[in-house]
């Protein structure tokens, strides 16, 4: 599903070169739920950006669904992002001027679906996150947890192969965080591969596998117990 080999990413300013990722290698299989943890500045976000085709690595090889994505044009990367990857951000990143329906519509329009198909997918995804009745509400009229559920609905509407979640519960209280986590576990059960960056060790333990990044490298790979049953319960 996702295979990174010796990925390097460095940022250069006038006087200094910073290595965000160094010889970073990782393989994620289809259907996995992988959590990524590590201290601040360890390279978690850089990894997420490269995995989500938001940034290009300085070196190394990245295969997504068996396709080498290193040499793709910006346009092709945009299309691939739109078709295969769903994003969930810490700050929800909903567009404040658009209601929930139109927010979920954003990636579907870029995909080129017709109006009928878009409506079907939007209604279905809103139902999946339990917000079908709020389609015409603006994001500001919702709680943080509800906004994050809309963001999940937006990610799901395109039926992506995998979801990248960046601290999805970081801005939520514990109750809402638990609800969002349960939702992600459901989504994973339906077959979507999930990579979730988190600071929360409890949430990290609920994934199938936890990866720790330190100084831009994978420092530890641990299989964690399957928590789905308990999490759902």
């Amino acid at each position: 599903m996702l295979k990174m080999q010796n990925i390097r990413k460095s940022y250069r300013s006038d006087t200094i070169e910073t290595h965000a990722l160094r010889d970073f290698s990782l393989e994620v299989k289809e259907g996995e739920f992988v959590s990524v943890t590590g201290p601040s500045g360890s390279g978690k976000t850089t990894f997420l950006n490269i995995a989500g085709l938001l940034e290009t690595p300085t070196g190394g090889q990245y295969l997504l669904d068996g396709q080498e994505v290193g040499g793709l044009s910006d346009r092709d990367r945009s299309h691939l992002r739109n078709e295969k990857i769903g994003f969930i951000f810490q700050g929800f990143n909903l567009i404040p001027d658009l209601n929930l329906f139109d927010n979920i519509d954003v990636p579907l329009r870029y995909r080129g679906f017709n109006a009928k198909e878009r409506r079907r997918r939007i209604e279905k995804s809103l139902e999946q996150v339990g917000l079908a009745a709020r389609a015409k509400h603006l994001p500001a009229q919702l709680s943080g947890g509800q906004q994050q559920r809309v963001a999940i609905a937006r990610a799901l509407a395109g039926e992506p192969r995998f979801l990248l979640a960046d601290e999805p519960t970081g801005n939520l209280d514990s109750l809402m965080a638990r609800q969002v986590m349960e939702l992600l576990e459901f989504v994973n059960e339906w077959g979507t591969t999930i990579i979730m960056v988190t600071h929360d060790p409890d949430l990290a333990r609920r994934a199938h596998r936890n990866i720790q990044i330190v100084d831009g490298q994978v420092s530890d790979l641990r299989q964690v117990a399957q928590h789905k049953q308990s999490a759902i319960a």
Partner: protein
Amino acid sequence: MLELRPILSALWRHKVSALLIALQLGLTLAIVSNALVVISERTERISRPTGVAENEIVTFNFMAIPKDYDMYDAFRQDLDMIRALPGVASATISNHVPLSGSGSASGFYTEPNKETGAMGSNYYTVDEHFVDALGMKLIAGRGFYPEEIMQIDPSSNDRPKVSVVTQKFADDLFPESDGNVLGKSFFLGGDDHPIEIVGIVERNLGPWPNSSIAGRGAFYPAITDRWFYYIVRAEPGQRDEVLKLVEEKLAERDGNRVINANTMEEEKAQYFAGDNTMIKVLSGVIVLLTFIVALGIVGLTVFWITQRQKQIGVRRALGATRTAISRYFLLENLMIAATGIALGTAAAQIFNGFLVREFDQPALPVSVTVFCALGLLAVSLAAALVPALRAANISPAMATRSV
């Protein structure tokens, strides 16, 4: 895929700033389209055919100092001398200079002893060289014979027997004659002395091209010492040399007079100075307003893009290509511009109605509004283009940044 509805929703949330720019565009359209009509009308006025060889003609008059100065003798000697100079194509004497803003006019009738219902027209007193000297085109009949030229006192009841008129004079005084007026006579007010038309010249706008009688002209075979100008036509390309030479020779022939020399081009420029100033001022207004509206659009687009950097990053992360981002902002701009243009079209018509009613300005044709609307639309898109292209360069990684 076009995002008209979401853009509309977003615009609705920022309706005040969007509406202000739309209003600015609308106001600019209303002013620019009306200014353009005025410019076009003034340009047309200035550039219409005058019927005379305006670029080849120089004019002279003089003030004689001695009281007993024999003017008619001076005319004869001066004109004989001028006609013999190199570079001179022809010369005549006239009471007035066409396009100069100074002339004589009278009321004309088709029947004797009439006092009301006259047709106004310019008239000139000239000698037999006038057609050539003014560079006019004789389209029917003849000019004057030397023996027909009279010396008249304008305040007396002296009347010429014959006249050459312009085509417009003939058409307006004898509308039923279909231009065939040779041999017909006209009369001055309260007068039973017929003046026979012996020739027709194609065109002569006269001394007041902006007046309602412009184009009507009657030429009399007469010389008067009350008002006089030597009208000298130079060979092509020799006008300035001829001006200098004639001025020198006139002074040389008789040093007791003050000579005033001008080109007809200068006379015309002076007459149309107001129109030219109006054209320049309105052109400046158009450029200034267009620049301000473009600046407003650039400012608003840059502001909105800066404000929405994160949102642009999110859109890119969700699959928007660079083209889609640029298109979004161009479409947003297009919708504001379209609203402004719709408002402006209505405002332009209302404003024009006011100008027509109150200031006798020309009506605004739809084609001018359409032309201005398309022009402003192009300016608006051009103004938004650079910020829109810069927006497309915002990285999708902006979506995961915390600021």
